[in-house]
């Protein structure tokens, strides 16, 4: 792809587990993307930072059960700031396939359950960014 994809990664809320998001951050960086990882942040702060950073993609990590409650708040905040059209939203972490489906319906462009590979994540990101930015 011609442009460098910029991705903002965050731990959603107070979740303590960061092994996955750090692994993904490095994988995305190694595949040529610009990665900004901000650690723990509540939904509204993640959106604010996404705007400040002009991120193409926002990826959040949740292994502590709050993916539905905080995921919903994140999408709502994104809609409120009208950035959904140009920004892709990803959710990764520990949750059931049933919840994964609900999060797709909620507005996440990509949902990654345990076992997702680097290949899957990187190619998904590239694909969804080019959809939202056909230029």
């Amino acid at each position, binding site marked *: 792809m011609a442009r460098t994809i910029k991705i903002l990664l965050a*731990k959603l*809320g*107070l*979740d*303590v*587990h*960061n*092994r996955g998001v*750090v*692994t993904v*951050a*490095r*994988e995305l*960086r190694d595949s040529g993307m610009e*990665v900004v*990882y*901000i*650690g*723990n*942040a*509540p939904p509204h702060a993640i959106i604010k930072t996404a705007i400040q950073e002009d991120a193409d993609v926002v990826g959040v990590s949740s292994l*502590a*059960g*709050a993916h539905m*409650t*905080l995921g919903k*708040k994140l999408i709502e905040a994104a809609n409120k700031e009208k950035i959904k059209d140009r920004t892709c939203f990803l959710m990764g972490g*520990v*949750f*059931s*396939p*049933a*919840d994964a489906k609900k999060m797709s319906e909620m507005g996440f462009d990509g949902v990654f*359950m*345990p*076992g997702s*590979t*680097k*290949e899957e994540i990187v190619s998904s990101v590239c694909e969804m960014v080019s959809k939202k930015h056909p230029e």
Partner: protein
Amino acid sequence: MGKEQGKRIKEILQERARNRKNTPLYSTKTVDGLRQKFNEWKETKVSEKDQKDWNVTPRTILGSSISRELLYTPLSNPNFDYEEDLGFSGEEPFTRGIHPNMYRGREFTMRQLAGFGSPEDTNQRMKFLLENGATGLSLLFDIPTIQMYDSDDPFSAGQVGMSGVCVDSVDDWHLLFKDIALDEITLSIVTHFPSNTAILLPMYLVLAEERGISWDKLRGSVQNDMTMEELVRSGPEYIPPRDCFRVQCDNIEFLRKNVPQWNFITLNGYNLREYGTSGVTEMAVALANGTETLKEQLNRGFDIDEIADRLAFFWAPANDFFEEIARLRAVRRLWYKLIKYVFNAKRERSMWMRCHVQTSGVSLIQQEPLNNVVRSAYHALASVLGGAQSLHVDSYDEAYSVPTEEASLLSLRTQQIVQAETQVTQVVDPLGGSFYVEALTNEIEKRILDELDEIEKAGGYIEALEQGNLQKKIVGYFSDEQRAIEEGEIKVVAYNTYKSSYEPPPINVFEYPEGVEEQQKAKLADLKAKRDNKKVKAALDALREACKNGDNILPYSVQCARVRCTEGELFKVFKEAFGIWNRTILM
């Protein structure tokens, strides 16, 4: 003085090793004869390929990449000295176990975690486990509680009661332990960090006080581990490492003096390894923290034999079956050597490596979840063959959510089947003397000590943590592990090996009870209106002062708990007094 000035632990132990007993089990003549026969056998019976690949390096999740021979014989350990290397069970060097009769005398504690929703919800799950044969309790808090924010804090929104139970004040503890006799249970309060230990444990002590139970009757443990607070977890706010270490030591000092049956630290261990590192590094870091902690306690005036015996460990048994058995034996022997030869302890109890284990969660996957029952069963069996004192077995829905009741029960049954049906507990250290297990035990002990030495050479545990060395090492490990899994070097059944298109029937997934956050917020509003807020302010001010002037902070946090301060209020005091650590987020 407990430690020779200037000498590192490895140096002290190497010197001591020169004074080994010299009672080798095998005679030189027999060994030489056997070596000849072995070489003949190898050349004539063993295929060329096997001769070439005599050593292989197994790769598994969280493995240590220690190479293994095709066949182990006395030649793998020719200087094997039963008295020096093993001893009898319950005797120095404790390789074979800390008690002569091990599980015949005392079964391993079946200590399954409980924690979700409201205190009332968790009270139900604890009772369920006790009714079905659990012999110990283990209490897990929700993320806001672990991170020390109240349930009504804006940062806690949407997360209250998830992945653990929410508690904010002593009132919640009364609900948690309704109809559970505190003096009849042993309770592991999973306070991961020193900071939240200094907040939550006092609440438990005040609960006991208000129920008329004296603290000397309380039995249990806290995690109280700086590795968790400063290295493993991700969080929005950290206090500086040296203040965190101080709090860790305040907790220990206070508990030693006031709650004599309480295990005041459970060294990591588990969470560090699950974060992503080998079983060797897991133990080296735990030992580094442990030794530095003991040194500080000696500085505070304790004799080693007054303090070492309530220090405990927390390990994560994973897939490599024999490595898991061997490393429990290795660290038991190594800890004995540390306490005896570096700290000069006289009491045997001081030298025991007592541990709780939790079977590895990251080794369990989402695909075909019932396979995880088998994985966890092997992890549990290895722990028992290695001589652990207490177990939690992770449940098959680990990659989905908090365990359902049926999944939690099956984990408990896994332990009970090991105890009642497999008969492995009838014989102490059943694998002792195995040529393989003894060789592996030796190798792992050596590696743990080497890594401990690296930490010491880098300035010690706190320094290595502050400088980010440990972080870097672990991030490197888990990044490589992910690659190894994706490239198929590490095989995971039904994920990258033995894959099929089979779709198993869906499992029940735990659903959190509704309304917990609202309920908790209402309780907090009520609490803050009813309590004596003058006393609250006075207690928090006194705590802040103690943080700053170096007094042991526990008596002050106990007072805070009594007057119904909330957890977030105490964490705020710590932040005010100690400041925020400007921690680099490593990528």
